[in-house]
Structure formats: C-alpha cells, structure tokens
C-alpha cells in the first residue's frame, strides 16, 4: 500500500527537463513564488556540459527550518524528459509523487506502485490552445507551474506579481503567460482533488530581509565595490557569469552617462594565460585587477602566478571550482583546487586563499581579496565553486560601509622619494615581510626598479647569490605569516553553546559551500546526541586559532568535497599535525554534499550505528555520467 508524505514547507521537488526547452525561467518562477510566501528555498541547477538537447534538472528544496544545503532524494519529480524517465522515477522517495505529461500513455511497468502518480496532458492542452510550436513548448512549462500552484497551495497572486516583474517593459508577453498559468491551475482544480496532496506550502515569515542571488553575481559586485578597474578573463564554466555580471554592473555604475566614458576595462583575452598576464601587468602598474576562472584555467595560469608571487605583484583570481582533474566534470561542483591554487607554480610558493560560504561572503571576500592583494602584493584567490557560484542562494543582504577606503598597501610616493626615503623594492622595512613598491612613472630620477621572475636582492638587483636568495625566500614566508592576521578569521560554533552540552572532544573543520549542509548536519547530530564543535575555515594561511581548535579536540573531522582530503593534508603539513587525529569526510561525486552524508560519515567513523534520519529518506549518491540513482 502506498504511504503518503505529509509535509508542509519541508520537501524537495525536482524538475527533469531537456536543456534548451525554456524551462529555466518557469522553474525559477516556481521557486521564487514560494520564497515570496516567506518560506526559504534553495534551488540547484544540475545541468550537462552542453547547450541543447541533453538532460537537465532543477532541484528545489523548500525548508521552513531554513536548511539551504542539498537534502538528497526528491518528494515530487516533475518528469518532463522521457530520456531520463527511468532514473528520475527511481529517485522519488517512497510515498512521493510523480508528475508527468499524460498526453503520451505510460504503461504500468514504467511506473512504481509505492508512489503517487499525477498525470496532466500538458502537451495536449498546449496544442489545443496555441498553434506556434515555440509557444507550445514554452507555455507547457508555465502550465506545470500553474498545476503545481494548485496542488501545493501556492498563492497565484505571488506568481502573477513575479510575471509582471519579469515582463516589465515587455507587457505583450504577460497575458499569454498568465493564460498558461491559469490553464494549468484550472485543470488541476477541476480535474483533481488537490487537498489529497501531502506536500503543501503555507505562508510563513522565515525569509526576513535576506536576498536571493547567485554567488557569481555577488562576487562581481564585490569587485565593483572593491574598486577593481581591470578585468581580463577567458570564458570558462562555471565562472563566466562573474564577468557577465561585472560587465552589467559596470555599465550601470561605472559609465559616464554623458560621455559614455568608462571607469573600467574588460578584456576577453585569447586564453587564461593572457588574462592573468594582463591582471599582473595592471597590478604592477597600480590598478586593481582581477580574473575569473575555473580549475583548468588555473592550470594554465600557474606559470604567471609563480611570477606574481616571486615578483610580488597584486592579482585577484576568482576560482569558481568545478569537478577535476583536467576537463573533469565541467558543470559539477567540487572543492578540489586547493593544492593547485595554494601552491601554484614551480618552486616553493604559498598563496592566500579565501573561502566564502555563500553569496554574501562572495561579495565581502571579493572586495577583501582586492585589498589583500594590494596589502600583501601577492596573488589572492577567491575560492568559490559551482554550487555557490551558479545557484541562486538565500543569504544576508549585501552591505557596504561608505566610510571604507581601499587598502592600497605600501606605496612609496614621489614626495617620500624626494625626501630621501631609502627605497629598496624588496627591503623589509617594517619587519612584516611586506616591502614598499613604487608605481611606474612615479619620480623622474628615483624609485625605478626592475621587476623580474629571477632571483634578486633587496634592491631588486639580479643576484644568484645563495644567501641573497634565502634572505628573499625567508622574507616571503614572513609575509605569509603577516597574511594570517589580515585574512578573514575562522568561525567557531561550539556544541555546548547551543545544546547545553558540557563540551566535546570531537571537532569538525569545514569550509566554503559545505556550510549549509554542515549547519544542518550539526543540528541532526545534536538531535542524535552526537556532540561536535565546528570550525569554519575562511582562509589560507591558517590562523593560529585553527591549530588551537585541533589541539583542544581529540578527534577532528575535516569535511571537504574532493577525493584526496586536500584541506586535511594541508592542515597536517602546515600545522605539523598528527595525521591520525584528522579524520576525512570526503564527498566528490560532483553533487553538493548533503547533511545526510556528513552525519553518516561521522557516525560511521565514530563507530556508531547508522542514523535514523528525522524523515526517512534513502541515501542518494549520484554516479557521475550515469544520472541519479537511489
């Protein structure tokens, strides 16, 4: 007998579509309408590296509790893609719902008897209403939103308002969209008993002043506010929309409305090598510059990153990570570029990495990266990933302090040179490892120097002398030590603060886009009487407090989305830690990590019985290239 799910404001609905079918805006409309009803949602695009015709999914988690991580499994599948029918069907939890286009007859052996089937003849209804093939295709998507609004109790006024906003300036398009919406809705209300559907949306007030934005857009805004004037880049998924957004905001905020003159320059370079070269040239010459790329781009940029490190030139690199190695999984997410960024280049290097957890921190850290690059005169990486970068995420509103000034770092001015200040380009005047620099063209006779990737003395003179080389390399380490104080500090969440527990010996270190799943896992673990303390890393170099945290706990789990435990190994190496103390929790199939995965992995390693989750869902694992299976 089929059980029935009964969940209000707490479910997962997934749309299986075909790439290029125009479903994206309908799916987003659905997600936003729930958000407008005050219920948090977290949508995720699961899409192929392809333009048209391949399977694509849009997964919406509705969670009044505010959990924004991927849950796993789905309670309702809107199965609009015959190609993936079999896999999509398997993913529905027992007692869940299959929504399909019943224009085409589905045989009983193509269905499951432990789920509820909702068939709506979408194609037939569309064909009866519209004659234009494109309209028939597009309005099918809006129609299923209409059906869902009836089934789930979504307020139509919110959807209509969203449509009005979407088609502002293109009012002609509004009536047919509304017509399609109501066609679907009316069909459901007339032909079905909607009250029997166990998934419901009820108006709540759990969104507050939070905003709904993609990490890539937020990072682009961070670059605007951080004062970046030069952007050189080469298109690569999933970072491309960083520059698209930067261009959009520059058009709006950085273009003189009278003359059309631009207070910025964006160059689409011939490749990633040239893009980082331009960033370095601009940084050398005193402009704030950045590039946005992903793992394969970092591979190509590595030679130049070594130059920027050794020649001490500011450069900001936004790395929206994807599945690697090599071309890897271009449209899936990972946190697997830690090694390749932290130690990019031949020889001994260490680079500053920042790990934002959500779009809000993408904004904050992008601006901070530009400051840090100038302050430290070195490359700084903003390490986001596809999950944060390309999905619209609920986060705190962006904020800017209008009294804030750009930190331009140690610049020797013409007046200081004129006054006879001792200028040595690589002289550690302040003992923090950060030397002074001059911009080209500063003074007619003083302060000019030669920048090079070869070894040099404190006055920038070429020297192969071993002692001089060591002196320089040691100073670079001092500079890296200085970075520890300047980078965003880790954030601790102690179990005793929230659970009244008397302290725990188990710690968990995590970073970046793992954050929402980890917060949920933390609550689930507590509910299961497993108490852990959390430390969210926000940067490399690791501040001393990270190692204090490790010292205070007998076991520390390190949660990350890569195969080799890159963060764990960096912690072991940088902190000279006993590897046995750090236990890896590794998720790297290209999908965002789930709370379930974290909880199970921790319980397993603590040799506890597998958890019974609060709602009984099968553990799902996506096998790359084979779609989703239970």
């Amino acid at each position, binding site marked *: 007998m089929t059980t029935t799910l009964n969940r209000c404001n707490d479910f997962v609905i997934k749309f299986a579509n075909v790439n290029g079918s125009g479903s994206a805006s309908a799916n987003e409309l659905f997600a936003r309408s729930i958000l407008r009803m005050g219920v948090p949602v977290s949508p995720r695009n699961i899409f192929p590296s392809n333009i048209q015709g391949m399977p694509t999914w849009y997964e919406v988690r509705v969670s009044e509790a505010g959990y924004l991580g991927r849950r796993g499994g789905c309670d309702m599948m809107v199965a609009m893609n015959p190609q993936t029918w079999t896999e999509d069907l398997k993913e529905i939890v027992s007692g869940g719902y299959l929504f399909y286009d019943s224009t085409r007859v589905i045989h009983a052996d193509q269905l499951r008897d432990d789920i509820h089937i909702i068939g709506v003849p979408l194609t037939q209804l569309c064909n009866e209403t519209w004659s234009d093939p494109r309209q028939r295709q597009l309005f099918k998507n809006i129609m299923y939103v209409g059906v869902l609004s009836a089934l789930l109790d979504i307020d139509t006024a919110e959807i209509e308002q969203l449509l009005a906003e979407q088609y502002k300036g293109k009012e002609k398009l509004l009536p047919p969209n509304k017509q399609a919406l109501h066609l679907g809705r009316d069909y459901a209300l007339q032909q079905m008993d909607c009250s029997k559907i166990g998934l419901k949306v009820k108006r709540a007030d759990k969104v507050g002043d939070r905003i709904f934005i993609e990490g890539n857009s937020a990072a682009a805004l961070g670059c605007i506010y951080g*004062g970046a004037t030069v952007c050189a880049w080469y298109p690569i998924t999933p970072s491309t929309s960083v520059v698209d957004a930067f261009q959009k905001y520059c058009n709006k905020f950085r273009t003189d409305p009278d003359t059309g003159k631009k207070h910025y320059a964006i160059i689409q370079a011939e490749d990633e090598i040239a893009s980082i*070269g331009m960033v370095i040239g601009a940084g*050398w*010459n005193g402009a704030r510059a950045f590039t946005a790329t992903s793992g394969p781009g970092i591979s190509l940029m590595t030679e*130049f990153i070594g130059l920027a490190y050794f020649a001490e030139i500011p450069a900001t690199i936004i790395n929206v990570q994807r599945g690697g190695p090599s071309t890897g999984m271009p449209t899936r997410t990972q946190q697997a570029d830690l090694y390749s960024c932290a130690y990019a280049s031949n020889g001994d290097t260490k680079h500053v990495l920042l790990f934002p957890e959500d779009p809000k921190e993408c904004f904050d850290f992008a601006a901070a990266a530009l400051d840090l690059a100038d302050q430290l005169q070195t490359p700084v990486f903003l390490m986001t990933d596809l999950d944060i970068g390309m999905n619209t995420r609920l986060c705190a509103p962006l904020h800017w302090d209008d009294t804030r000034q750009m930190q331009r770092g140690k610049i020797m001015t013409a007046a200081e040179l004129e006054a006879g200040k001792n200028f040595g380009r690589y002289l550690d005047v302040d003992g923090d490892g950060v030397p002074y620099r001059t911009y080209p*063209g500063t003074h007619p006779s003083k302060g000019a120097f*030669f920048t090079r990737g070869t070894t040099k003395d404190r006055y920038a003179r070429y020297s192969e002398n071993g002692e001089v080389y060591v002196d320089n390399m040691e100073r670079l380490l001092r500079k890296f030590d200085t970075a520890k104080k300047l980078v965003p500090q880790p954030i601790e969440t102690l179990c005793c603060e929230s659970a009244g527990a008397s302290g725990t010996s188990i710690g968990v270190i995590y970073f970046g886009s793992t954050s929402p799943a980890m917060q949920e896992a933390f609550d689930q673990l507590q509910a299961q009487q497993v108490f852990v303390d959390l430390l969210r890393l926000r940067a490399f170099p690791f501040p001393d407090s990270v190692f204090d945290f490790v010292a205070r706990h007998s076991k520390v789990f390190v949660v990350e989305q890569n195969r080799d435990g890159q963060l764990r190994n960096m912690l072991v190496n940088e902190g000279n830690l006993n590897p046995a103390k750090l236990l890896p929790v590794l998720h790297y199939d290209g999908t965002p990590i789930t709370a379930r995965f974290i909880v199970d992995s921790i319980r397993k390693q603590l040799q506890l019985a597998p958890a019974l989750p609060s709602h009984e869902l099968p553990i799902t694992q996506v096998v790359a290239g084979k779609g989703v299976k239970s």
Partner: protein
Amino acid sequence: MTYIAKPKLHHPSLPKNERGYTRRDYEGAVSTLCAGCGHDSISAAIVQACFNANIEPHRVAKLSGIGCSSKAPTYFLGGSHGFNTVHGRMPSVLTGANLANRELMYLGISGDGDSASIGIGQFVHSIRRGVNMVYIVMNNGVYGLTKGQFSATADKGSQSKKGITNADSPVDLVMLALQLGATFVARSFSGDKEQLVPIIEAAFQHKGSAFIDVVSPCVAFNNHTGSTKSYDFVREHNDAVNRIDIVPHAEAETVQYEAGALQDVLQSDGSVLRLRKRHLDYDVHDPIKVMTYLHKHQALGELVTGLLYVHPAPEDLHAHLNTCDKPLNQLGERELVPGQGALAKINASLR
C-alpha cells in the same frame, strides 16, 4: 651574471635635449651580452631615439619576455620601470599595464623565440587589439641562451652553426603584423643605426600599435656562412625602401621637397615623418601594395627594410574600449564605488 651598474659620473658639458636630459640619462647597466651582439646596437639606438625624441625616461615602462633580447631592457633607460616577465608573455603584461595607466609610454622588447614561437599568440593578440606601444623584436633567427637552435624566423634552407639545414618555413613577423592591423610596421637592421634610430623615434610618436622587426645578428651562433641573419648576408641583401627624417610640426609647412622623392607622413601627435624614398613607387599608406612588394622582394632573397606601413590616424585599445581619460590606476572610491545606497537598491531587487 651579476648586475653591473654603470658609474653615474659623466662629463658636465654633455649636450642636453629639450627636457634637460643627456644621452647618459637614457643608458642602463653594462651589457652582459656577447661583444658584437646586434642587440647592443639596438639598445644604443633606443637610447639615441629616446634622447632625440625628448622622452622623459621615467615615463617609459619597458617590458620584455625571456631570452637574450629580453635581457636588453636592463641596458637602457635605467630611470624607467622595467619588467622581465615570462617567456613569450610580455604582450599580455604590457596590455594590462597599458590599461592601468594610459599616460605612460610602453616599450615591449622581445626576441624571435619569444615572439614567433612560444609567444606568437600573445604577439598576435596584442597587435590585433591595437595596444599603444612600441614593440621591438630583436630578431636573430636563433636561440642564443640555449646555444644555437633554430628559431621560428630562421629562413628555410639556412644553416645552423653545427651545419644543420632548416627545413621549416619561417614566420615573417612583419607580414603578420600587417595582416593583424598594426598601424605602424617597420623593419630594420641592427647594423644600420642611421635607419633604425628615426624609426624608433617615429614609433614612439605613433599612438597605436607600432611594430619594429630588427634583424640583429647573433655573433655567437648565427653569424656564419649559410646563415641568412649574419652581418654579411644582411648587408648584402638589404633593400631599404626609405629613410626617415622627423620634422617637428611647426616646420612642416615651410619645407619644400622634390615631388616623388619625398613623402610626408603626418603623425597624430602633430609631428611629420619625412620619408626619403629610395623606391619612388613605394607607398607606406597602402597595406596591400606593401604586402605585395614584400612578397616580391622576399622571393628575390632580399630583406626589405625601412618604414613599411603607417596609418595616419591610428586608434588604440583605449579608444576601442572608450575608457576615461584619467588613468584607471588613479581613480578613487568616489569614481569607483557606488555606495551603500546603490547596494540597498540592489538588495531590494533581489527579494
């Protein structure tokens, strides 16, 4: 190699240019290249050209890649900021520097290995973008620092010092630059200072991508019989199409010249290049005819030198991008940061 600074003392009565600089002010460290290296002659020509053009040394940014040629910026313009980048990647760094501050003059120094092999992509794209720069390739057809391998500009059939015959066709950077839309294209010979100095001077006055290919014999590895980039070979096969005089704008209208033998080229900065034509039918404004001429003479085994092509009204990358007149590296918060008010509106639109 060590860094050898030249002594700063010099004779007090050395002649000064209009800006008050002596020729010594344009020099750099003592060269560590081989005695007789063509690159040193080019460095000397750059020094002379900058002196003649009254350039303030600190307003020049000199950038290079890797190789013998790319060491050369150490040996001139000691008062300028220099940047030895990585192999073949100077053009992108120069482009970025130029974007940051459009007011400086950018001098890119490269070699045939640096620009025609590893860096050919960056060479191509910097020219294609019209970066305002003087891009000089010190072209010796050989890898000097790694002891004598052919470079991509070595002529087919020419021989290495070890007697190996080059079977590959050469990359002709001049033809490439013309095709890519460089607005100033010249070729010269390191041993012909009379021709080279005014070409460099004119290139500095040009407000667009100026490319100069300078054949510069390598005395250690490519100055032997069988080489087409030796001093003797170039002297014997040099076909100079013109010689330049730089005429300040004020005098231009008053100078009389014999029709046909001279061609005046008005530069966008107001100066005039007076070309003393050696081939009366040669027109520096017609890129198609120029390419035909170059092909014809190349087939005859001649090396065509001189100012080969110049666009009278060049545009540069900043014009294409419509960037503001103030250098981007001098813009402050007021011009760059939209402020919390704008952010609040953005926040409101994202709910």
